[in-house]
C-alpha cells in the first residue's frame, strides 16, 4: 500500500507466518520471529497479479513486463511501496537462496527465464550475492530445453541440475508416511532457503500441480509417488524436514497454464493466464490454483476434476491435522487479485 510506513522485517515475517499459523501451519524457518499468541488473527494471503499485455505480440512474455508484474505481486503481498523491501524481509544477505523451477514440460510450459531473472535481480538488490542464488531443477538437460543456461560460476547466479557432476541426491533416505526418498543435495546441502517457482498446470495424476507437487523434482524417486492420485504422497513429501524447513516463498508462474492434458505441454490445452501468484502458504496457493483451473475447464466445456476422477485430494490432506502444511479453507485465506 502506498504511503504507508514500511513494516519492519519482524512485522513482515510475522504477517507471513501468522497467516500460515492461522492456517494450521507449524512454524517454519521464517516463523522464528513470530509471537504465536496473535497467530489466530490472520489468514493466509494469496496474491494474483495479472497483465493482459504480458505477451505482447510474441511467443514469450516480455521481460520488462514480467519484472513489473512480479513487483506488483510482491509489493501487494508485503504491503510495501518499495519493490525490494519484501525480499529483504524474507531473506538474509548471507543466505544461499534456491529457486526450484519446473522445467520438465519443455519450453512451452516451464518456469519462464524472464521470471527467474526478475526474482534473481530483486534478490541481488536485497543483498544476496549472485553466486548464492541457485536456480535448479532435476537435470541440466531439462533446464537447457526450457531456455536456461546452465552455469556453476560462483560469481554469477548459478543454474544447475541435480544431475550435475558433484551434486546428486543425498545418501540419507528420509521417510514420512508413504514417502521414502533421497533429496537433491542442492536443497539439503547447498541452499539455506527455497523459493518454489512452479507452473500452473492440470495434472493427469494429481488433478493439478503447482507448489506442493513441484517438490517431486526434489527427490530421487518421483515415479514411485504417483499412486492414488499422488495422495498422500505429495503431502507426505512436503513433510520431509529439508523441504518443510527451507521453503520460504512460492512465486508461481501462471503466465501460461494448462487446464487439461498436463503435466506435459499440449498446446491445445494451454492458455495464457498472464499471471504471477505469490504466497507463503503452499496449500492455500494450490487451492487457489485448483479454482483457476476449474474455472477454465468449465469455460471450455470440460467436466470438473472431481467428475473425471481427478480431485486433487492431496490439498486437503496437506491441510489436515497430521500435516498442517497450510490451509485449504477459503474462509481462512485472503485472496487479493490485482
Amino acid at each position, binding site marked *: 500500500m502506498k504511503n504507508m510506513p514500511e513494516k519492519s522485517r519482524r512485522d513482515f515475517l510475522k504477517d507471513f507466518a501468522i497467516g500460515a499459523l492461522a492456517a494450521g501451519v507449524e512454524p517454519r524457518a521464517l516463523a522464528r520471529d513470530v509471537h504465536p499468541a496473535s497467530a489466530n488473527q490472520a489468514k493466509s494471503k494469496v496474491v494474483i497479479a495479472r497483465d493482459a499485455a504480458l505477451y505482447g505480440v510474441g511467443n514469450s512474455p516480455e521481460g520488462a513486463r514480467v519484472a513489473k508484474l512480479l513487483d506488483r505481486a510482491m509489493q501487494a503481498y508485503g504491503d510495501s511501496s518499495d519493490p525490494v523491501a519484501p525480499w529483504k524481509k524474507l531473506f538474509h544477505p548471507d543466505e544461499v537462496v534456491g529457486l526450484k523451477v519446473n522445467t520438465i514440460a519443455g519450453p512451452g510450459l516451464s518456469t519462464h527465464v524472464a521470471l527467474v531473472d526478475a526474482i534473481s535481480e530483486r534478490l541481488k538488490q536485497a543483498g544476496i550475492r549472485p553466486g548464492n542464488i541457485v536456480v535448479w531443477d532435476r537435470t541440466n538437460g531439462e533446464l537447457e530445453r526450457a531456455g536456461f543456461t546452465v552455469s556453476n560460476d560462483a560469481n554469477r547466479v548459478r543454474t544447475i541440475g541435480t544431475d550435475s557432476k558433484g551434486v546428486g541426491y543425498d545418501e540419507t533416505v528420509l521417510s514420512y508416511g508413504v514417502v521414502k526418498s533421497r533429496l537433491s543435495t542442492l536443497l539439503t546441502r547447498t541452499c539455506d532457503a527455497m523459493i518454489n517457482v512452479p507452473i500452473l498446470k492440470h495434472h*493427469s*495424476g494429481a488433478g493439478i500441480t503447482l507448489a506442493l507437487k513441484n517438490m517431486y523434482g526434489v527427490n530421487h524417486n518421483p515415479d514411485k509417488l504417483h499412486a492414488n492420485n499422488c495422495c498422500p504422497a505429495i503431502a507426505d513429501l512436503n513433510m520431509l524436514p529439508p523441504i518443510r524447513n527451507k521453503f520460504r516463498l512460492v512465486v508461481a508462474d501462471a503466465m501460461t497454464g494448462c487446464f487439461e492434458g498436463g503435466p506435459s505441454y499440449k498446446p491445445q490445452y494451454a492458455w495464457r493466464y498472464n499471471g504471477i501468484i505469490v504466497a507463503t502458504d503452499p496449500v492455500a496457493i494450490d487451492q487457489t490454483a485448483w479454482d483457476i483451473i476449474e474455472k477454465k475447464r468449465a469455460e471450455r466445456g470440460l467436466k470438473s476434476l472431481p467428475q473425471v476422477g481427478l480431485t486433487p485430494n492431496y490439498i486437503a490432506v496437506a491441510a489436515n491435522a497430521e500435516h498442517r502444511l497450510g490451509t485449504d479453507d477459503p474462509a481462512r485465506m485472503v485472496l487479493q487479485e490485482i
Partner: protein
Amino acid sequence: MKKPSASQLTPLLIWLAVALLFEACQQQAAPPAGFFPDSNTVSGWTKSAEVRTFAPQQLSEYIDGDAEKYLKAGVKTTATTDYKYRGETDVVVDIYTMSTAAAAKAVFDSEPAMDAEAPTLGDSARLYSQSLIFRKGPYLVRMVAYQESPQLARAMLELGRALESKLIR
C-alpha cells in the same frame, strides 16, 4: 504304430522353436527410432536432435506424471526427437509404441478433442494449430510445436504423413 525316436524328434523341435521365435519377432513392433523422417525428407523440416528412447520404467523421467496413463494402457517403448520447421519453429515428436492398437486408441480417446480438425491420417488423427496427434495400429504419435507459425499445422500434417508411412501395423 512305432513311436518316433528322440533323434527323429530333435529336428522337428528345433524347427518348431525357430518358427515360434520368428513369429514372436514378427509380433514385436519395429524399433521406432527408425521411423523419424530424416532432415529434408519433408520440405522445411530438419531433425535437430538425437533420438531418445525410454523404456516403460523410465518414462516418468521424460513426461513425469503423464507417464501413468501410458503405463496403465501398456506402453512398450517411447522414442522422441526434435525437429525445426523452416529453421525457427521447434517441434517435438514422440512415438509411443503401445502393446496393442486398442491401447493406442485408449490413450488417444482419453484426450478431449476440443476444436480439433480430424485429418485422414493413420487410424485416427487430430490436428490443432500447434500440435498433431494420431494413431496407427499400436503406435501413438504426438507432435508439439513450441511456437506459433503460419502454415505450421499443414506442415506438421505433411511430416506426420511421412512418419505414418513408415509405421508398420
